[in-house]
């Protein structure tokens, strides 16, 4: 009897016990360290398009990160993959559930800020940071889906699911919300953090506003290039009126100008003495963006090797010769289409398509080797790239140039002394007692081009260099690369500024031209070029190449469907010409081998909204 009684008494509160291995909400937020911890998680979830951003999503460095190294750049005209011929699919670049998870986590913090026992300054900082994170999240949503449900406070389930369903706002309302949240962040955040932490500042918020406003403005100006129809269009859930462009361009100009006029930022090493110096400065800037604190406005760090903390650029994109034991390197192949866009120093202000023949009038001929043509011959396999913008040399590993103490050999074959070409494989031949190998060396570890073995050799004629650290041999395993990512660079702000000025016809054109030419000066150019939209877009392509900007530039300016209408991307293949002694290199412009044409459809300017069966939202057109 007593036993039963005692047992019953001891049952008191058994269901109210606190777990010992988890923090409770109140405890977490009552302690400044707890808030910091919570904030770190929000930053981790931020949709930053960094080294771990792929078509499968963000933070693609946990679990099994094996996606073949297929980078977002390969869906644009910047690069192709060594093996995959994929183009954009409906499920690519989705960010719905994760987006609303981040928004909910941020709303939890926003709701609790007024109750926290912290100083006024700390409260302001929290208000600013949470607005910045929400702006960043909604920007990532609106550029994918158009107008989305604006959830601005934590939703509570009280027995009625229907009450939780929020309809989509219009696309314009959503963009306006993003810019408004940027303003809240700008008004509340300080210039910097006392310990120099990589957290949002007033300037990072301005930078986000500059990028977002330019995106919205371009959509307003250019949506009519790709008209779509359907319920979502009728309800203005996708699409912005053309008349809204002016305000958005102004917002982009103002936000950029605030950064420019702050005096806190500058380009890294703005006046190099030579193109060689410019190339080295530019390369170093991406090898470690921390060396340029005035240029890098916001950095995401990859601190230590491991799941969730390192990334995989160092293994996927090394040239084959420096694979360091990794079985599938060499996967980022910059295209000739991109290479052509780099200016030459002698003829600035223009695309400089690489002329391979003495006549130079056949840059649109991609039909392959023609023995009747008088090809330019070079001793140096990178000779044809001389005079090209320094940034090309720092973005791509060109044939025959050194990398990690090796000469990187990229050769597609040879023209035999009898004038017949042998390209992409076959047996070596003997010429005057010397054995000549089709790919430039006897063993497959000694060259980096065109051999299809393992999908490890470039098929465009150049390999990838930007962001790779020449001084580090990355261990051949997952997530072993720890270089940092510059999310906002001053150079991007200058380009946003120049584009907004030239596209809107407002602002000070002279300042826009100066912004454009300052970036070119840093790349070793000494002749200024006028501010035109073509000049700005070309400059964006080369300065921001592989920074995951091109995809969105093609989307926001509605150029994708025009540039990718049965688009065939191109290679510049180096070939050893044995018709002359000593043998020299010639180059052939041609279609990239084993790659199908790609087409971007109107409807792909918006992603489909997942789960409309349960969330009841209006679907985007044609899904």
């Amino acid at each position, binding site marked *: 009897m007593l036993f039963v009684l005692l047992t019953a008494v001891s049952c008191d509160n058994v269901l109210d016990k606190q777990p010992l291995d988890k923090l409770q909400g109140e405890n977490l937020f009552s302690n400044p360290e707890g808030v910091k911890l919570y904030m770190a998680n929000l930053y981790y979830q931020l949709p930053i398009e960094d080294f771990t951003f792929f078509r499968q999503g963000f933070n693609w460095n946990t679990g099994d990160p094996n996606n073949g190294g297929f980078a977002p750049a390969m869906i644009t005209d910047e690069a192709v993959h060594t093996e995959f011929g994929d183009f954009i699919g409906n499920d690519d670049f989705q960010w719905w559930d994760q987006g609303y998870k981040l928004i909910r986590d941020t709303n939890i913090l926003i709701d609790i800020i007024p109750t926290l026992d912290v100083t006024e300054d700390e409260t302001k900082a929290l208000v600013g940071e949470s607005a910045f994170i929400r702006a960043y999240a909604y920007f990532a949503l609106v550029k994918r889906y158009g107008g989305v449900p604006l959830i601005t406070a934590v939703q509570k389930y009280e027995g009625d699911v229907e009450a939780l369903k929020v309809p989509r706002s219009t696309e314009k309302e959503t963009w306006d919300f993003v810019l408004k949240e940027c303003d809240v962040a700008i008004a509340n955040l300080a210039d910097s953090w006392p310990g120099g932490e990589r957290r949002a500042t007033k300037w990072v918020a301005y930078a986000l506003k500059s990028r977002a406003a330019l995106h919205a403005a371009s959509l307003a100006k250019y949506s009519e290039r790709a*008209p779509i*129809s359907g319920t979502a269009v009728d309800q203005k859930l996708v699409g912005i009126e053309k008349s809204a462009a002016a305000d958005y361009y102004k917002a982009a100009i103002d936000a950029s100008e605030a950064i420019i006029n702050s005096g806190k930022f500058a380009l890294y090493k703005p006046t190099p003495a030579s193109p060689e110096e410019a190339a080295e400065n530019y390369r170093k800037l991406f090898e470690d963006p921390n060396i340029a604190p005035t240029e890098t406005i916001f950095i995401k760090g990859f601190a230590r090797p491991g799941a969730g903390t390192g990334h995989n650029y160092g293994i996927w994109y090394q040239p084959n010769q420096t694979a360091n034991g990794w079985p599938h390197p060499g996967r980022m192949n910059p295209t000739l289409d991109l290479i052509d866009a780099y200016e030459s120093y002698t003829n600035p202000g223009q695309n400089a398509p690489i002329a391979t023949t003495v006549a130079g009038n056949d840059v649109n*001929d*991609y*039909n*392959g080797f023609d023995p009747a043509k008088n090809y330019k011959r070079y001793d140096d396999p990178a000779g044809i790239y001389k005079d090209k913008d320094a940034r090309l040399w720092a973005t791509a590993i060109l044939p025959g140039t050194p990398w990690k103490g090796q000469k990187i050999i990229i050769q597609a074959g040879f023209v035999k002394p009898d004038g017949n070409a042998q390209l992409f494989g076959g047996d070596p031949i003997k010429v005057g007692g010397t054995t000549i190998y089709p790919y430039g060396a006897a063993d497959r570890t000694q060259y980096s081009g065109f051999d299809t073995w393992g999908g490890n050799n470039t098929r465009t004629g150049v390999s990838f260099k930007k962001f790779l650290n020449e001084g580090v041999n990355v261990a051949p395993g997952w997530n072993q690369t720890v270089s940092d990512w510059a999310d906002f660079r001053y150079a991007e702000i200058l380009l946003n500024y120049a584009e907004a000025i030239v596209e809107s016809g407002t602002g000070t054109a002279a300042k826009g031209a100066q912004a454009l030419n300052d970036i070119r000066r840093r790349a070793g150019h000494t002749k200024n070029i006028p501010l035109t939209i073509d000049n700005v877009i070309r400059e964006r392509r080369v300065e921001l190449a592989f920074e995951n900007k091109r995809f969105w530039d093609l989307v926001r300016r509605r150029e994708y469907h025009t540039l990718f209408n*049965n688009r065939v991307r191109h290679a510049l293949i180096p070939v050893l010409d044995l018709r002359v002694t000593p043998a020299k290199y010639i180059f052939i412009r041609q279609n990239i081998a084993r790659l199908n044409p790609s*087409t971007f459809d*109107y409807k792909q300017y918006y992603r489909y909204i997942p789960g409309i*069966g349960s969330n009841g939202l209006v679907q985007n057109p044609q899904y």
Partner: protein
Amino acid sequence: MKHLKTYLSALLIIFIAAACKIDNYPAPDARLYGTFLDVETNEPVEQDIIRGSTIEFIEHGYASQTKQVMIVKNDGTYRNNLIFANQYTITPVRGNFVPAEPQDVNVAGETKLDFKVQPYIRVKDAKIEKSGSKVIATFKIQQTVINNVRKIGLYAHPEPSVGEPMRTVLSETDINAATDPNKVYKLEIDIPSNSNNLKAGSQYFFRIGAIIDAPESKFNYAKAVRIAL
């Protein structure tokens, strides 16, 4: 124990058998087919099989109002042999013709449904010939709306489904103006400078197309022509 095992297996079989209730719904039992016909000439309106005109249809009796789509063959015909007998709202959309009204159709058994449409453009007097090292197309353009003609093109592909979306070689001219129905347009493709895609001794399909400047419009075509190079 032995008995228990027997009982258990028997019980299991009963459970599994219970799940075997007949739950097969009837398969789609109707067929819907037809042709896009020019309302004036009553001839089929040439189409594209990929990224061409589409037919949206909504099955009645469900709350979701989900739009399903059918595509159209190059000769302007379409056919769906796996459709449920029911009432449908059917609309040809995003096409190369003046937008058509939705219509409610009862689909049962073999149902024929032609769409009488007004094509934006008629390509008239089309002629495609090989002449020396070139393939030359001549034709006239008759537009049925006041919009500008955006561009005209000659497209080539090894398959008969050739069109603007499906071509390996093209020759296009931007027009961006209203056209004179009596003017003879000429487009040509040079064979040697496309030696990658046009190989001597092979045969290819060539097709003349023109597109009107209207939202979501698609190309209008003349019939594809087979030419041996």
